[in-house]
């Protein structure tokens, strides 16, 4: 992938080999697992979802043809099963994202970086959600409170931050599998507390490794596909 400039190493060639031999279902499954396991919303897999939709549509037509032509019912049912599995993955992937959008909508809308992770449809959904929830809370609760407590995002006007906005908890722990060797990482890069035991603060994974890790320091590794969540 686009990780290194210049010539391709053998490891990258291997990557390429596995990449072209990996089916979209496999990629979709990975995206689904990552999305389910990650505490925040991940970038929308636009190209992958588009391809998956096309393949599903094509398969639906094939299955319909089978039904009409009175083809061997066994084969038709096998194709139907394959179709069902792909559809389940796609639906579940999209649903997990919608759940996250519902949960973190105000937070996502505060930052462009997060907003850009959504698809156009998801953005529309989020906008509608914010409008409706905002209106609902306004009408049922906020408008009946004293002036100082009417903000949708803040507990009261003396709050300095938007303290009524749920934020994704990036310090949750996730289980990850290593796909490609990661760079050695300094786990406490952002840590300030003195006296922390520094013995194993640098950490590296090789393909196949299975780890429980704190999500935050590994965000980039996940986005670049070096690790996947299970």
């Amino acid at each position, binding site marked *: 992938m686009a990780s290194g400039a210049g010539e391709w190493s053998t490891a990258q060639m291997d990557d390429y080999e596995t990449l072209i031999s990996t*089916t*979209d*279902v*496999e990629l979709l*499954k990975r995206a689904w*697992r990552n999305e*389910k*396991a990650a505490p925040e919303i991940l970038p929308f897999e636009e190209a992958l979802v588009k391809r*998956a939709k096309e*393949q*599903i549509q094509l*398969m639906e037509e094939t299955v319909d043809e089978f039904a009409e032509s009175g083809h061997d019912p*066994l*084969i038709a*049912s*096998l*194709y139907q*099963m*394959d*179709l069902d*599995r*792909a559809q*389940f993955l796609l*639906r*579940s992937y999209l*649903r*997990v994202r919608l*759940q996250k959008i519902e*949960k973190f909508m105000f937070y996502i809308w505060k930052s462009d970086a997060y907003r850009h992770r959504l698809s156009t449809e998801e953005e529309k959904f989020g906008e509608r959600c914010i409008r409706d929830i905002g209106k609902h809370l306004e009408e049922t609760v906020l408008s009946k409170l004293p002036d100082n407590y009417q903000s949708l995002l803040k507990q009261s006007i003396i709050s300095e931050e938007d303290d009524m906005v*749920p934020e994704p*908890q990036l*310090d*949750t*722990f*996730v*289980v990850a599998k290593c796909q490609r060797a990661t760079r050695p990482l300094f*786990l*406490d890069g952002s*840590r*300030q*507390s003195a006296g*922390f035991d520094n013995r*194993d603060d640098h*950490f590296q*994974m090789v393909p196949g*490794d*299975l*780890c*429980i*890790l*704190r999500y935050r*320091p*590994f965000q980039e590794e996940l986005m670049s596909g070096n690790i996947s969540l*299970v």
Partner: protein
Amino acid sequence: MAGQSDPHISLFSAEEVEFMAEDELIEIVPNMRMDPLNFICGDFGPFLPQIATPVPLWLAVALKKRGKCAIRPPLWMSVEKLTQVLEGERDSQGAFQALPFHYVEISRLLFDHARDDIPDMYMVRSLIEDIRDVRVHKVETSLEKFSGTSAVKIPNLSAMEVNIIRPFVGRALQAFYKHDNPEKIPDVDRASSGQTRVANNEPRRPLRR
């Protein structure tokens, strides 16, 4: 939300873990003739009588249910191999033996749907159950060694085992982390759990030694 686990209870339901395992490849020996299948998840076949061919587990089970094939149990599912694994599992306290990531689900599916294809099926089943027990016990004892760190390697742990320990270990490590870095995580760590923290305003008493 049919067909999808509630994310608040457990990340993946047992059915979802099984779903993932069903994509693992396994060899079948068909007893009929069938053209290659061009699935979304890949191309399989052609299917010829007595010629072994690899297919995903779900397809193997579907064909087996209709009496169209025999399933070849994977190499690790033999009495000999499993006895070795069990011994290794008992000998080494800390480490886990290498088994397929989905060994629990694969063996379970085969026991349910292809019992006549597994030689010494009862022996194999009890060996796998023993291995599972030993491993789960080992997971529990090795949890004692976890301390406040950001990453722990858990080599050879299987999908089902990961799924079982995830809620507990995840929260435990998070708690360790939180106590190491009180400034990092706001006190409302589970906004979704609906628990209010009334006790927070109480004056704190220093711990006596």
